[in-house]
């Protein structure tokens, strides 16, 4: 008489593996079907746009869904502008549009033609750093450096706008740029330094 509880370890592993494979097939097929339906079958809309970045014109082909941030980084290899949250909450992607600070992650590239884009790469004059870049180095305005391009673009605009009358005012008008290392004191100091020039 065989004992019904006497299953071998091998039998257990084999049967579980087979069951797992069969259980996974319907979900993976379904996921694949959904991907086909949502992303492969709908034809993406391609646009030809002309944009000016750091005073240089570019004719590029983009997907209508592209953000300015992705176009800068992926199409134009201007990887100085960083992708932090990609949802407009951290400020790492800050660039200037016609001289005013804006978030490139919430800007559709298709809406940029006609505007002048300035990125961190366009700030220095050749090897001569922008005064704000010099100040960030001198005042320890960063640690890991990931938020720094966005901080510097925002800081340059903050000085230009004249919101540098007090530490509180600088903090309020720099609140759209987060720094996880907490280099805020150095950032404020850099801005005060440039504002006093």
């Amino acid at each position, binding site marked *: 008489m065989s004992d019904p509880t006497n299953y071998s370890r091998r039998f257990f592993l084999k049967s579980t593996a087979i069951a797992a494979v069969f259980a996974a097939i319907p979900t993976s097929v379904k996921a694949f079907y959904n991907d086909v339906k949502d992303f492969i079958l709908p034809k993406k809309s391609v646009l030809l746009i002309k944009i000016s970045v750091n005073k240089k014109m570019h004719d590029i082909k983009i997907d*209508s869904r592209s953000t300015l941030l992705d176009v800068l980084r992926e199409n134009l290899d201007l990887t100085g502008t960083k992708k932090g949250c990609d949802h407009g909450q951290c400020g790492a992607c800050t660039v200037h549009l016609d001289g*005013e*600070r804006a978030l490139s992650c*919430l800007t*559709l590239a298709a809406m940029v033609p006609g505007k002048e884009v300035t990125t961190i790469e366009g700030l220095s004059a050749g090897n001569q750093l922008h005064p704000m870049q010099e100040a960030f180095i001198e005042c320890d305005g960063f640690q890991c450096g990931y938020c720094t391009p966005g901080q510097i673009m925002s800081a340059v605009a903050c000085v230009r706008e004249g919101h540098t009358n007090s530490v509180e005012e600088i903090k309020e008008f720099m609140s*759209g740029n987060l720094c996880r290392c907490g280099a805020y004191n150095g950032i404020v100091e850099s801005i005060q330094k440039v504002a006093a020039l």
Partner: protein
Amino acid sequence: MKPFIFEKAKTSAEALKLKTSGKDFIAGGTNIVDLLKKNIAQPDGMIDVSTALSTEIKLSERSLNIGSMVRNTTLTTNSDLLKNYPLITKAVLAGASPQIRNMASTAGNLLQRTRCPYFYDVTTPCNKRKKGSGCSAVNGDNKMSAIVGYSDQCVAVHPSDLCISLVALDANVHGVDSKNKQFTIPFKDFHKLPEDTPWLDNNLPQNALITHIEVPKNEFHKKYSYVKLRERTSYAFAMISVASALQMDGDTIKEARLASGGVAHKPWRWHEAESYLKGKKASDEVFKKASEIVIEKVKPLSHNAYKVPMLKGAIELALRNAVNL
């Protein structure tokens, strides 16, 4: 993100011609682009109206007209606004970040969607995102949700600061509908309560465009205040906000306006407290009584009872700040 076709309209007439129910307008993009990324908005087409609409601010004898494409930052630097309608400037400066204010349009600010966490989490039920799927916040994490005017189908709040000042100042929303007919909606009736149609945020006709916001001339430019309480001192949505505006005759309050954000599905006016204040001599005692009248109306949810004393204090503070200005 679902693929979409992109079109640019040169005029509002052209924008309305291009518009179908499957397409969305885009102006500043600060909210819609995020909604596209999260697959909450899934239009077949986007119509760029950023160069089709008015960017003018016009001051006349009777009112101030703000073009729908005026950027939020412009509302903080325009001299006519600063002089005659400083409450609007104060409210706008309390919202978002300089980058976002540079991008965001006036009409877009009115039309932004709620920031209820369940609305943004596509894995959870949300009647506002998906009709009839249920409300996760009503019995869930409703720390940031409404304390007045909600229904069992939606407890979301409207996130704008600008709108709180506009409802306090009895503004009007002007627009043009799909048949090119002009219309006007009083600001207090522009946004709606969730009731049993929480997927609709406002009473803007389908496929219509906002052309401008009209703020009637008033005498509230001397005594006003905007108090915003949030989890950090800047760049966060309101837990509670209060716009107060008083027209004084010596010590006596001739007219009062009180409105709040962070409390309801729409920018909320405290009419009973306003009527109480009218004709009273301004004093801490009177302001305290007004704040008591305000909180009589509210009914917090499971996680936001803290908003009641916070609102009471914010009302008193906003009234005191207004007279001491």
